[in-house]
């Protein structure tokens, strides 16, 4: 495991049954509660009995070997898939039967493992799509260029630049999103997601393809985002330095089931996790 430079030093406390959240969030309603969540694809249980609670300002990590079902969990939370078992509660509201858009309006935003930007639109326009439900005017106002159009467009523009500033990307505002370098595309996805004013931000492998320097920067930014926006963040990541460095609660998934939950220290010491990652040690080898 790579050298861990920074460690979140949060005391985690149980809130109900086995769920834990940071101590500072203990008296606030959790952002996300996944209860016995599961989905089957043609008889195969991709995710089974998944339970997770995330505190209001928690940075949580979801890790596990490839194919463990991490992205599927994201898809269940964001309602890309309708779970076949269990429930997802966002800010205490059951999302049963909701679609992606409704879930988004409840305050979930995400990035994607395989980047999904609006390639043919500019960077600013991408962020403005994130602002779609924040700064509004109707179609006719737009078609007829009524005063509301100019006012709201200006607001959108200013807000978009503000958001881009988080990653110092204002200068790229007019570039076509599809032509950005890889790292910038990943950062843009985060900005776009933040624009929707989420209470829970899901990051799917935000550090994939980044160099160590970029990763470190990202790590700082993730913490900064949480502090600035006071939101919860759940991230999937293979880069353990990032996960261990920034995540307060960590949940380990293997074959669709949770095999361990806890703080970074607890997870690192957990033999089941080590086994899942390194494979079962053969007897006699040790």
């Amino acid at each position, binding site marked *: 495991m790579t050298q861990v430079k920074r460690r979140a030093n949060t005391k985690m406390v149980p809130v109900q049954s086995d769920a834990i959240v940071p101590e500072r969030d203990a008296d606030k309603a959790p952002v996300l509660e996944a209860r016995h969540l599961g989905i089957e694809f043609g008889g195969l249980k991709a995710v089974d009995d998944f339970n997770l609670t995330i505190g209001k300002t928690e940075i949580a990590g979801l890790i596990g070997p490839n194919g463990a079902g991490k*992205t599927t969990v994201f*898809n269940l939370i964001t309602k*890309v898939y309708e779970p076949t078992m269990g429930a997802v509660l966002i800010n205490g509201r059951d999302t049963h039967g909701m679609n992606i858009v409704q879930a988004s309006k409840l305050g979930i935003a995400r990035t*994607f493992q*395989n980047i999904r930007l609006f390639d043919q639109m500019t960077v600013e326009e991408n962020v403005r799509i994130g602002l779609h439900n924040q700064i509004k005017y109707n179609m006719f106002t737009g078609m007829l260029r009524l005063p509301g159009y100019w006012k709201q467009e200006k607001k959108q523009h200013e807000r978009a630049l503000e958001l881009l500033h988080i990653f110092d990307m204002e200068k790229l505002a007019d570039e076509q999103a599809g032509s950005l370098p890889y790292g910038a595309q990943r950062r843009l996805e985060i900005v776009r997601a933040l624009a929707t004013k989420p209470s829970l931000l899901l990051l799917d492998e935000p550090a994939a393809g980044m160099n160590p320097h970029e990763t470190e920067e990202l790590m700082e930014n993730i913490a900064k985002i949480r502090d600035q926006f006071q939101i919860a963040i759940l991230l999937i990541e293979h880069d353990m330095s990032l996960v261990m460095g920034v995540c307060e609660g960590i949940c380990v998934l293997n074959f669709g089931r949770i095999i361990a939950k806890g703080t970074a220290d607890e997870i690192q010491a957990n033999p089941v996790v080590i086994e899942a990652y390194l494979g079962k040690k053969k007897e006699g080898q040790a």
Partner: protein
Amino acid sequence: MIFLDNLINGLSLGSIYAIIALGYTMVYGIAKMLNFAHGDVIMVGAYIAFCGLQYWGLPPVIAILAAMAVCTVLGVTIEGLAYRPLRQAASLAVLITAIGMSYLLQNIALMIWGANPKFFPPTFINSTTFKLGQLNISSATVITILANIVIMVGLTLFTAKTKMGKAMRCVSEDRGAAELMGINVNRTISVTFAIGSALAAIAGVLLCSSYPTLQPTTGSMPGIKAFTAAVFGGIGSIPGAMLGGVLLGVIEIFGKAYISTELGDAIVFAVLIVVLLVKPSGLLGKPVREKV
């Protein structure tokens, strides 16, 4: 009795649609393009067979083989010249190219064979009528249905058993991966067009055996209907094309016979829409789940 008669008419029409749809669906499955010119390749096949029979005095079997040979060459040429350069292009560009190809073939046919319709001469295919009580069944119907079954089984076996067939399935699943596995994608697609076009020639002869007037536009409407049939059955699926074609034919005839001849086509298309709304990938098509 009348019902049976209509059913047979529907099967007869449907089997024609099916045989054209097979060509559509094969090309779609592997090259992932709507080959709008397929109907016109059928027309060319029919003209070649017509020339063979009427002008060159060839025996029917030889005329059909000649048509198949010409269409095969034509299909491969079209693919190589017009479609191959667009392998990486957006599907819309390929669609427009195919439409351009369709216009081109029609106009070349107009120049060669003129605007006057030809009447496809009778051959062994449609020369006899079987009587079953009061029912009259043309031998063309029987032969078309048989040909359909043979072709469907043949294609299914071909794609399942032969090396080239397996290569086709690979290319259809994932072109990039197939290329990495050492499959020559261009060659595989060429072979697909060759087979599809040879089938088009057979379809052309069978089409004109049942409906003998032959014009440069002969292929367009059956082409569109067969395309509809292929989508109906689930485009890319060989049994789906067969099922879609036959059902479409039966629906069309029943719609005309029991509802209204005026609305026959409207009924066919309405049924297609309803089916697609219930089963968005057609009757036997595999649902595609977008990976997130």
